[in-house]
């Protein structure tokens, strides 16, 4: 009797456009090793789920996915054991790109192509292809959107808050940096800032405290839509409606709120876990020595950066398909 909320929808939100043309035909069998950090929050869970469902779509792909871990030491061991197990291609989302560089190189040296997802290795020698989001641009786009909206509303000396993710991760710092830089370009700066832990509970807790400290607030950027559930709840709990909020990553949940336009959430900046599906597709092609169909290139490109589009009420319908269940 106990199932999760939307069982059908959760599994394969973005499988429609993975492989087209010739590439869709089954080729030689490929075993793909997959290693990622612990799926301890919605976005990271979506990455793993997407990778698995992408692999299931291909009859020629066997996915060898390891337990997610936030201990780099352990992740290294996992990748090593994947190498030992003799996989054809590796897809690695490192907990810490720099720390896993060595093992990435080790795989490459052993002749196993590595698809590096999101958090980037220290040297191109450690990966054959990289696909990831643009954390800095995410901050920039959020900053620009907020600044422009405030300008439109003619707010003077606005107070802009920030609910960051886990502070010790480089991605959080890049996002914050982009946000700061963008605001600065408009002559604005970041006011109250807290960091949560990508979980709804920490989002609620930290935002509740932030709102207490900031009696006036005009805009709030929340890095991550997982914790966003808590951030929105905290705003409701405090009964505040004096500011608007921008999310990050692009969960279905936030998109629905944007569409409804009844609460504080006015936009979210994409950082879609669809990149995991793409990574599997690329890994399969690498294993079969194919290129990307639509490109003139014979090979898979070495780097692909996804775009952090700003989703607003106007364009939300176009993006519902890449929304993930946080």
């Amino acid at each position, binding site marked *: 009797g*106990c199932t*999760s909320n939307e069982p059908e929808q*959760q599994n394969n939100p973005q499988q429609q456009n993975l492989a087209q043309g010739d590439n869709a035909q089954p080729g030689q069998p490929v075993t793909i090793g997959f290693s990622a950090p612990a799926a301890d929050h*919605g976005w990271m*869970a979506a990455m793993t789920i997407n990778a698995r469902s992408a692999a299931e779509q291909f009859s020629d792909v066997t996915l060898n996915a390891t337990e997610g871990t936030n201990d780099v030491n352990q992740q290294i061991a996992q990748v090593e054991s994947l190498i030992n197990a003799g996989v054809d291609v590796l897809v690695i989302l490192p907990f810490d790109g720099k720390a896993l560089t060595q093992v990435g190189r080790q795989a490459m040296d052993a002749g196993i192509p590595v698809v590096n997802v999101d958090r980037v290795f220290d040297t191109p020698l450690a990966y054959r292809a990289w696909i990831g989001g643009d954390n800095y641009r995410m901050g920039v786009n959020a900053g620009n959107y907020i600044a422009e909206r405030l300008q439109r509303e003619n707010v003077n000396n606005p107070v802009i808050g920030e609910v960051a993710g886990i502070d010790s991760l480089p991605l959080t710092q890049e996002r914050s940096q982009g946000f700061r830089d963008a605001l600065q370009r408009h002559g604005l700066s970041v006011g109250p800032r807290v960091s949560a832990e990508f*979980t709804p509970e920490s989002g609620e807790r930290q935002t509740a405290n932030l709102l*207490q400290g900031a009696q006036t607030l005009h805009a709030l950027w929340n890095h991550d839509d*997982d914790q966003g559930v808590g951030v929105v709840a905290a705003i409701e709990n*405090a009964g505040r409606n004096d500011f608007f909020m921008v999310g990050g990553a692009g969960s279905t949940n936030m998109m629905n709120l944007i569409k409804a336009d009844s609460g504080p959430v006015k936009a979210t900046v994409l950082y879609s876990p669809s990149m995991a599906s793409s990574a599997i597709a690329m890994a399969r092609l690498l294993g079969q020595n194919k290129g990307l169909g639509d490109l003139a290139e014979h090979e898979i490109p070495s780097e692909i950066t996804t775009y952090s589009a700003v989703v607003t009420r106007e364009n939300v319908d176009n993006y519902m398909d890449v929304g993930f269940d946080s």
Partner: protein
Amino acid sequence: MTKALDRPPVRSAGVSALRRSVRFDVRLVGLAGVLVLLCVIGLITRPETFLTQDNLSTMLRLAAAIGVVSVGMTFVIIAGGIDLSVGSIVALSSVWMTTLATQSYGPVVMVLCALLVGLGCGLINGALVSYGKVVPFITTLAMMASARGLAERLSGRQTQVVTETGFTDFFRASVLGIPVLVIMLALVFAVGWIVLNRTTFGRRTYAIGGNAEAARLSGINVKLHTALVYGISGLCCGIAAIMVVARTTSGASTNGLFYELDAIAAVVIGGTLLSGGRGSLIGTLIGVLIFTVLNSIFTQNNLDTDIQNIAKGAIIVGAVLLQHTTARRRKRKPPARTDPDPQPTNTNGSQS
């Protein structure tokens, strides 16, 4: 007592009862002093916002879940055990009560579901500890992994939003300006205090933690009692899950992360010995509040996380040292404690 009567009257009851309360007070007074100090710091650094009713109620609401968990933890620790699984049980309860299936039965069933899941997990812990004779650390560590895993499985690692507005409306409301969550916290504390200090159940809990063998030879059913104490802790986790769900309007397998550490820290800083047999719920309450206020001061003053961490460590140690000094100044420390005593576990050891 030097030149008392030939046989001093047995009950200088008045005096000794006073003494007793004084001895207790001193510990707690030191601790309360630390809390007041922190509040003063908060007031100085953020005079406009810190002591507003709004902020107080926010802080208390944030303290509610961890406070309730700490009540259960106090029982377990006084009984000489430890419960590492509280955070995971909160997660599991919160997820279970927010599945579509559960929500479809309405708010009452949701609440019952959370309580039963919590109680059930607690009783499993208890049964393994007392009847299976697995040490508490290992038992609850295992439950910590399993309950979290089950929560992830149930939720598919998705955040489950509460659509049942009856539930959220009730628990997010206020009565006479006091949030329902804060009232619940107060109730749990009051009931906990009465059980611990005014009932035979509470006395037996202390006895088991103080000396399980003595308790057994006094005819106490130590196994059953121990199992029940873990059940209480689980039940508290169920209540905390309701609070978390009410606050975040969602259930998620990530709820309750690090609750075990926070709760144990609050209990220990509140003066309860990890070796069992001694402790007070009031201390635990003050401990919870200290951590909440600290957090609030940090965020309101916009401190970097790293500085927060460094300061947190220093403040915790400082608080405890301060407590010690207060206690020593009053010369109320029984001499058994003046010796090295690297850990309280050993004070049990011996003395003349």
